[in-house]
């Protein structure tokens, strides 16, 4: 059975801190690793990673995939209160995404 494990499950930081969120996966027919941000209901897409070692960056957020170790990290630098959300990691196979339980990030002013 496919499995995605995220850590930590929750994290509280102060504005300006840098955070690293972790995601490990065991997905049959693995194709891609996706990160989503969920603030209220609908998860919004952040990154999709398919190749090892190539960092994807969007503003203060960046992510990288290690296909040998079956691992991905999401980094957020200079955190802001608006970054408070649940960050979901998902392993993609032929058509299916298997989600982890998410990391609840709280950024305090």
């Amino acid at each position, binding site marked *: 059975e496919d499995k995605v494990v995220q850590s930590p499950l929750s994290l509280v930081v102060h504005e300006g801190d840098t955070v690293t969120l972790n995601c490990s996966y065991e997905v049959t027919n693995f194709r*891609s690793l*996706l990160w989503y941000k969920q603030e209220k*209901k609908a998860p919004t*897409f952040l990154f999709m990673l398919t190749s090892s070692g190539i960092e994807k960056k969007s503003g203060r957020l960046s992510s990288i995939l290690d296909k040998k170790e079956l691992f991905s990290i999401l980094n957020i630098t200079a955190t802001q209160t608006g970054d408070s959300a649940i960050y979901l990691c998902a392993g993609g196979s032929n*058509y299916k*995404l*298997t989600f982890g339980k998410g990391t609840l990030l709280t950024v305090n002013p």
Partner: protein
Amino acid sequence: GAGVSQSPSNKVTEKGKDVELRCDPISGHTALYWYRQRLGQGLEFLIYFQGNSAPDKSGLPSDRFSAERTGESVSTLTIQRTQQEDSAVYLCASSFPLAGANNEQFFGPGTRLTVL
């Protein structure tokens, strides 16, 4: 439409009643997915449609749950004889047909179901 839409946004029902949840995917997206998210949990896959057929229903938790899709567009998730453990947010997502490793799914705002 511009995005995935779902209705109703909230549904409160009594135990034992049937409910129908609706999803309108992004126009042109032939793949459609239903997920369930219980409080404090990740997304639990329920069913996948490609066009109007459902090649993977493996996530439906019991025979009280069913889903259909018509016109390669709207989908309805039906829960019969609802139980309190069915209370959750039900999320729908759609995507283009698979092209290599492109699995990006676009999510709707969800339906929050509360079974009293």
